[in-house]
C-alpha cells in the first residue's frame, strides 16, 4: 500500500531525482560490501593459494586447486565434529520443540488462570540470569559436564523469545470457537493440540524449529565451557582450532612456523574451504530460513 502511494509521488522535482541517485548508489555500495567477502571466500577456496596470497584473485577464481577441500575431507576431526553437531542439532531441536510448543499453546489459552503469572515467570529469565559460574556449577552438580546432554538441556532449552513467537501465533490463528467445537466432539486439550493445533501451525513450527536448529549448529559456547573430551566436541570447536588456533593440519605441521609464508598460503586455503564446508548446511537451508525467519521476526514483534 505504501509503495502504491509512493508511486504516486512521482519524480516531479529535480531534487527527487538526485535523491534517487544517492539512494541507489548507497544501496549498491552496501550490497557489494556485504556480498563481496562471502563471494571472495568461495572463489578463494578453489583458487591456487599463491594467486590468492598475492592478491591476484579478485573477481574470478584463478588456477583451480582443490587442495584445501582434499585436506578437509581427510581430516577426521572435521567429520567427528560434523557428526556430533548433526546429532546435537537434530535431537536438541526435537527436544526444544517438544518443550516449547505445548507450553506456548497453554500460554495462549485465555481461560488458563496461571497464564499471566507463568508468562512473567518465563520472561523474567530474559532479563535476569545467574551468570556463567552458577550455571557451570549447576551442570557440575548435575554431572552433565562432558556429556552430550549438556547440548540439549541447558538454559536455552526453552527459549523465551521462541515461546513468545509461538504463543502469539496460536493466539491469533487458533480461534477459541475452534476449541469449543472440538470439545463438543469429545476433544481434550491433548487431542485438540495434536490433531488441530499442530497441523494448522506448520509456519510457526518451521520458524522456531529453524531458529533452534541454527542456534545448535552455531553453538560454540557450550562446547567451550562444558566439554573437555575432544570426541564430544561440536563442529564449532573444531572450526575454532582450525581457523583461529591455526592447527590447520591434523598432524600439527603447517602452523606457519617452518615453511613460513609458503605453508601459510596452503593453510589459508584450508581455512577458506572449511568456512564453506561448515556453513554449507545453513546456506542450503537459507531459502527456507529467509522465508520463515522474516515471518518469525514479524510475528514476534506484534506483541513483545
Amino acid at each position, binding site marked *: 500500500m505504501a509503495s502504491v502511494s509512493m508511486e504516486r509521488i512521482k519524480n516531479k522535482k529535480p531534487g527527487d531525482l538526485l535523491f534517487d541517485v544517492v539512494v541507489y548508489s548507497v544501496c549498491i555500495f552496501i550490497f557489494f560490501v556485504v556480498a563481496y567477502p562471502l563471494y571472495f571466500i568461495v572463489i578463494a577456496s578453489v583458487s591456487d593459494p599463491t594467486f590468492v596470497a598475492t592478491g591476484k584473485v579478485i573477481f574470478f577464481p584463478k588456477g583451480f586447486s582443490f587442495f584445501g577441500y582434499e585436506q578437509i575431507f581427510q581430516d577426521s576431526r572435521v567429520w567427528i565434529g560434523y557428526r556430533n553437531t548433526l546429532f546435537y542439532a537434530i535431537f536438541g531441536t526435537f527436544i526444544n520443540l517438544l518443550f516449547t510448543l505445548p507450553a506456548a499453546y497453554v500460554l495462549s489459552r485465555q481461560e488458563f*488462570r496461571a497464564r499471566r503469572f507463568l508468562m512473567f515467570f518465563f520472561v523474567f529469565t530474559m532479563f535476569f540470569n545467574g551468570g556463567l559460574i552458577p550455571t557451570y556449577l549447576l551442570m557440575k552438580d548435575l554431572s552433565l559436564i562432558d556429556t552430550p546432554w549438556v547440548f540439549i*538441556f541447558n538454559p536455552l532449552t526453552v527459549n523465551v523469545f521462541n515461546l513468545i513467537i509461538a504463543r502469539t501465533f496460536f493466539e491469533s490463528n487458533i480461534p477459541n470457537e475452534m476449541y469449543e467445537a472440538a470439545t463438543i466432539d469429545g476433544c481434550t486439550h491433548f487431542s485438540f493440540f495434536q490433531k488441530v493445533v499442530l497441523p494448522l501451525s506448520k509456519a510457526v513450527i518451521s520458524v522456531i524449529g529453524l531458529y533452534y536448529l541454527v542456534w545448535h549448529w552455531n553453538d560454540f559456547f557450550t562446547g567451550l565451557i562444558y566439554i573437555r573430551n575432544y570426541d564430544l566436541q561440536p563442529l564449532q570447536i573444531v572450526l575454532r582450532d582450525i581457523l583461529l588456533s591455526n592447527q590447520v593440519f591434523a598432524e600439527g605441521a603447517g602452523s606457519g612456523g617452518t615453511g613460513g609464508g609458503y605453508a601459510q598460503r596452503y593453510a589459508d586455503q584450508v581455512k577458506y574451504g572449511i568456512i564453506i564446508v561448515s556453513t554449507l548446511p545453513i546456506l542450503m537451508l537459507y531459502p527456507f530460513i529467509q522465508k520463515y525467519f522474516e515471518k518469525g521476526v514479524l510475528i514476534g514483534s506484534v506483541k513483545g
Partner: protein
Amino acid sequence: MAFISGAKSAQDTKQLKKPTVVSTFKRDYQLWLMILPAIITVIIFNYIPMYGVQLAFREYDFTAGLTGGDFVGLKYFEQFINSHMFWDLIRNTLLISITTIVVGFPAPIILALLINQIRWKRGKKILQTTVYLPHFISIVVLVGLLNVLLSPNTGLLGLLIERMGFEGTNLLASIKAFVPVYVISDIWQHVGWNSIIYLAALASVDPQLYDAAKIDGANRWQIIRNVEIPAIIPTIIILLILNMGTVISTGFEKIFLMQNSLNLPISEVIETYVYKVGIISNQFSYAAAIGLFNTLINFSLLLIMNTIAKRVSRISLW
C-alpha cells in the same frame, strides 16, 4: 486431591466468584501437564543458577557445590574492586558496549529507510536476501573470516591496507583497531537482520499520511523526516531499551575469539575475565562475584534507559 475438593466447594458456594488457579485445576490439568516440562527445565536451568548467585557472598566448598560454604559477605567484591584489573575491565567493557550501541544502533534504521526507498522490487529483494545472510554465519566463522581477510601478508584487506601505505599493520593484533574491527564486523553481520523490524514498522505507515504530505508539496527527504521517522520512533525506543539491557552480555564469544596476547589490554572485558578466573582457574566464588557485578551494571543500564524513555516519550517496557 486437596486441590480438587477445594475446587468443588468453591464452585458450589459461589458461582459468581472469579475462577482461581485452584478452582480451575481439575478442568485444566491437561494444560498443566503440557506446560510442566517447560516449567521444570526453566526452574532447573534458569532459576537455580539465580539462586547460585549467593555463592558470590560465600566461600566455595567443593562438597557443597552450588550452595556454597562459609558466609564471607562482600569479601570478593572488595577483592575485585581493589584488584589491578578493575578499572581496565570496566573501561574496556563500557567502551566496547557503548561504541556498539552508539555506532551500531542507528545502522539498521538507516538501512531500513534506504531499502524502503527502493521501488525496483527485484533489486529490493536481492538486496534484502544478501544483507540478511551474514546473520546466520557462526561467530567462529565470522572471526575466522576476519582473520583470513585482515591477515597482513596474505589477506585481501590486509593487502589493500598494505598498498595504501600502512606497511605491516596487523589490525587483529592492534590495540587501536580492536574496537573498530569489532563494531564494524558486528554491523556487517547483523545490520540487515536488525532492519527487518523497522521495515515492518515502515510498511504499516498509513498511506493517507503519504498523500497528505504529497499535497503539502513535501519532497522525498521531507517525507522521510516528517512521516517515516516519526512512525518508527516507538519501535526505535523499545529496541534501544532492550539493547541497553543485553549489549554487555552478548559479546562474550566474539570478544573471546578475537582476543590475542597483543590486543589483550583493550579486549579483556568483564565476561572474558569471569571465564578465565572461574572456569580456567577454578576461583568460583571470586568469579561469581565479578559476574554478579556485571549483571548489576546491565540491569541498571536497562532501568536508566527505561526511565529516560518514560520521561521523554511515555514509552516503557512495563
